[in-house]
């Protein structure tokens, strides 16, 4: 129902109070006799009151791209923590398994450069002055990527906290969490980022974020798959 042909276009102006006094009177008389226009007026009549609840210059707040990253990042972290419950081991079994694990890890470290994980890509991490100061290997885990990071000669004079980022192919930076460098400038960390294989190709280490923006870049590396 959109009103009759002669007066249908006047219903909107009538409802918002935009007609001249003579037109208002004419419209009132018409509405008393035209069912179509009267029905249309009833349908639109509540709009001025609804419009009053907003302001003329209200805008729809846009979500920042970082929020999606933060939500997905939290999801990945929680998922990683909710692994299936472990079986109880006897007192003797625990040291035995631990010893075997260490031995196996040492063997793998000797045989496989970068460790024996399920890494699908590795990167040398370069400082802004062009020196290789670390490495990163990445492995896929549920909902994201585990990044194993080793670095040395990190400047710790202005604080020892750093952040890891995965730069997606669309240019967005996905936060992988923060880590601490040791007093001697070395660091080893295992972090999780909400990105998947193929979605990113660059890993960056920065100073801590300030005001929602990542801090100064310290290391960067391109992944070799």
């Amino acid at each position, binding site marked *: 129902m*959109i*009103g009759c042909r002669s007066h*249908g*276009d*006047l*219903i*909107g*102006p009538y*409802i*918002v*109070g*935009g*007609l*001249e006094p003579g037109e208002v009177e004419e419209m009132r008389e018409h509405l008393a006799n035209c069912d179509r226009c009267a029905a249309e007026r009833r*349908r*639109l*009549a*509540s*709009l*001025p009151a*609804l*419009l009053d*609840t*907003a*302001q*003329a210059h*209200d*805008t*729809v*707040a*846009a*979500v*920042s791209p970082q*929020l*999606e990253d*933060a*939500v*997905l990042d*939290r*999801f*990945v972290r*929680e*998922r990683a923590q909710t692994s299936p419950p472990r079986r109880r081991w006897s007192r003797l079994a625990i040291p035995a398994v631990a010893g075997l694990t260490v031995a196996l890890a040492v063997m793998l470290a000797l045989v496989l450069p970068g460790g024996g994980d399920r890494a699908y890509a590795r990167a040398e991490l370069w400082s802004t002055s062009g020196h290789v100061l670390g490495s990163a290997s990445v492995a896929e885990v*549920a*909902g*994201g990527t585990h990044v194993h990071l080793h670095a040395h000669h990190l400047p710790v004079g202005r604080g020892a906290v750093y952040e890891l980022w995965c730069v997606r192919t669309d240019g967005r930076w996905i936060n992988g969490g923060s880590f601490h460098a040791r007093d001697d400038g070395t660091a080893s960390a295992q972090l999780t980022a*909400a990105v*998947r294989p193929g979605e990113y190709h660059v890993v960056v280490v920065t100073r801590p974020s300030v005001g929602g923006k990542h801090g100064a870049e310290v290391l960067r590396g391109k992944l070799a798959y």
Partner: protein
Amino acid sequence: MLVERLPRDRSGDELRELYRRYAGELFGFASSALGDREQAEEVVQDVFAQLWRHARDYDQRRASVRTWLYAIARNRIVDAHRRAAARPKRAEDGSLDSAAEIDASLDQAVLRWQITAALARLSPAHREVIRLAHYGGLTMREIAERTGIPLGTVKSRTSYALRSLRLILDEMEVEP
């Protein structure tokens, strides 16, 4: 159904899809209710955390996903208001005290956000004529003089703009 698949979602794809569908309006609602972008972002994060933690409890016969998410957001916003009310007040503080005040404020915030979002969906020409006529208080003749648009066009455009707005609000389930 996305929410039902969420407990088995190892890739994050289902969550991403849900986020892209609902995060914008949840953020708009929270932002409007709290008047603080940072707090609104925290609310949205909490809503999605609750979503994946309790996805198994979701029953589509009881409520739509949208209604469920809004209910979670609403609870988080009420919590934020309560925290603000518990803090020592400054003279300029607008903190809300009672549950009734918070409820009324939230209803108003939802409605304000819905109207703003509906106006944003109108064409620029329709939005402009509503702005001038309703918010500017101009008559059709004054709008025609100010914009140089023929008077008859201004009148018909105003009617079309209101009809479009009503249709959008119907879609958003905003009662007349």
